């Protein structure tokens, strides 16, 4: 017994507190490029946390959570442009709208399983995107300008707060009865049901939370871009990036999306600085190697090593 795991557990809270303070003070010292990079990193990690609830904990692989990000973006833009709300209030409304939309959608979509759910969500995201752009007020395909004024710093703090909230939510889920029910239905839905788990309700709750987070983040992104159009906010690149982060870090783990996100951004930045022409190729190759070496992700691989060392 080396006690490494209890030590790590005790170290988490102080470490987290220091990290949050550093992240809060960061904009004071960073240049424009660095703060943009920091914003996009925190955004992707927060998106990965949102995705991890329905796909990591409940085991429903979604390729459509970005739809809720797009809905949040457009809702915020429309409210700010037409009703002149303060943008954070509008972004909050965007998040609530995404949540309300997710409940009936989840009721229908979560009847599908495995690859059918994954494909269904992909199609659903396209449908939402077309519907949103069909509303004349969104400027259809040509996009929507937002009034300038709110700087990147405000957007960054909003996103950081949601990211911290999403991590806190995940910590709670991981320890709660709700989380145990989700993991049980991920492993075997029928057995979970015959053991008294109300699977439909648990799934829809998870789906709603996995929509609320991107919904809240979307408003910040609209402000960050100051001009939004469908391709920018229903971004499959952002969607895929956050999914890869969560998988690389460890599906259905508390720290997976964070570790996966940090590792990915660090590698990507280092490669980009040195091999600007071919960095994506090297990055892709590295990702393949990492996933082959650690098929369950970084966090489970290290957890297993610590458990072995401490002799449990």
């Amino acid at each position, binding site marked *: 017994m080396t006690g490494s795991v209890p030590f790590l557990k005790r170290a988490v809270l102080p470490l987290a507190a220091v990290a949050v303070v550093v992240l809060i003070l960061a904009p004071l010292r960073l240049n424009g490029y660095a703060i943009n990079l920091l914003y996009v990193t925190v955004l992707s990690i927060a998106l990965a946390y949102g995705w991890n609830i329905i796909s990591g904990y409940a085991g429903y692989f979604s390729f459509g959570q970005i739809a809720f990000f797009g809905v949040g973006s457009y809702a915020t833009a429309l409210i700010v442009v037409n009703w002149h709300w303060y943008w954070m209030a509008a972004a909050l409304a965007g998040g609530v709208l995404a949540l309300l939309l997710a409940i009936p959608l989840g009721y229908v979509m979560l009847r599908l399983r495995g690859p059918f759910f994954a494909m269904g969500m992909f199609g659903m995201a396209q449908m939402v995107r077309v519907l949103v752009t069909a509303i004349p007020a969104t400027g259809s395909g040509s996009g929507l300008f937002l009034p300038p004024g709110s700087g990147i710093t405000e957007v960054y703090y909003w996103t950081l707060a949601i990211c911290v909230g999403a991590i806190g939510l995940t910590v709670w889920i991981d*320890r*709660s*009865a709700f989380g*145990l*029910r989700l*993991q*049980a239905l991920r*492993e*075997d839905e*029928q*057995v*979970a*049901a*015959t*053991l*008294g*788990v*109300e*699977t439909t309700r648990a799934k829809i709750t998870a789906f709603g939370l996995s929509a609320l987070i991107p919904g809240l983040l979307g408003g910040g992104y609209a402000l960050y871009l100051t001009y939004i159009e469908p391709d920018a906010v229903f971004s499959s690149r952002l969607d895929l990036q956050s999914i890869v982060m969560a998988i690389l870090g460890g599906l259905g783990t508390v720290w997976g999306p964070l570790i996966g996100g940090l590792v990915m951004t660090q590698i990507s930045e280092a490669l980009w600085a040195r091999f600007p022409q071919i960095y994506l190729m090297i990055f892709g190759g590295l990702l393949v190697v990492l996933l082959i070496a650690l098929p369950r992700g970084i966090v489970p691989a290290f957890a297993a090593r610590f458990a072995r060392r401490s002799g*449990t």
Partner: protein
Amino acid sequence: MTEPLLVVEGVSVAFGGVQALGDVSLEVREGEIFALIGPNGAGKTTLFNVISGVLRPDSGDVRFAGRSIVGWAPHRIARAGIARTYQIVRPFGRLSVVDNVAVGALVHARTIGQARNDARDVVAFVGLGAYADRPASSLTLTQRKRLEVARALALRPKLLLLDEVMAGLTPTEMDGMAEFVQHLSERGIAAVAGIEHVMRLVMRISHRIVVLDAGRRIAEGDPAAIQTDPAVIEAYLGAPLAGA
């Protein structure tokens, strides 16, 4: 006279053109050990699926503690007091043994901590105490069978549906399982055990037996009556030779 704990009345299920269950009826009383025997494909698992709410019957009624439970969602039936195990063991592989059992214990516990405590007791009760914190995927087949039973017991059921609990066990382990079921019966938990073979044990511990063959009930009675029933002998051993 009150109604028996479980009443199955004229239940029929067809899969396409195959009649999996045809007009099957049976009654199980509180604390009774009830054996459901029949060759492979007789409809035992189908009947368990109907009772546990996984499958809706085409016709017929299932009543538990006086209320019809046809059309109830499986979780509601589980909470009402019917627990089941699966013929092919289905542990939540990535969860620990305790957490596997805690899922069922959540039905009665107020907090997850309490559910885990209750689960530890049940895990120790079925003899898996030493493996409580291991992932369920690391258990052997015999241990997984016990885990199935432990998960079901954590629901504190009045009725336990045991689908082929004896399959894959050694004779000694079968005796252990039989003793265990008798012990539960003494505590007032009724058990319906679906069993293909192992007649020696069935005859020893069952209070009553129903024999299914090709989805139909061909006999019912106590062990002594079943052993001499010509229909049962025919189902298991084939028709007597002409003129023999």
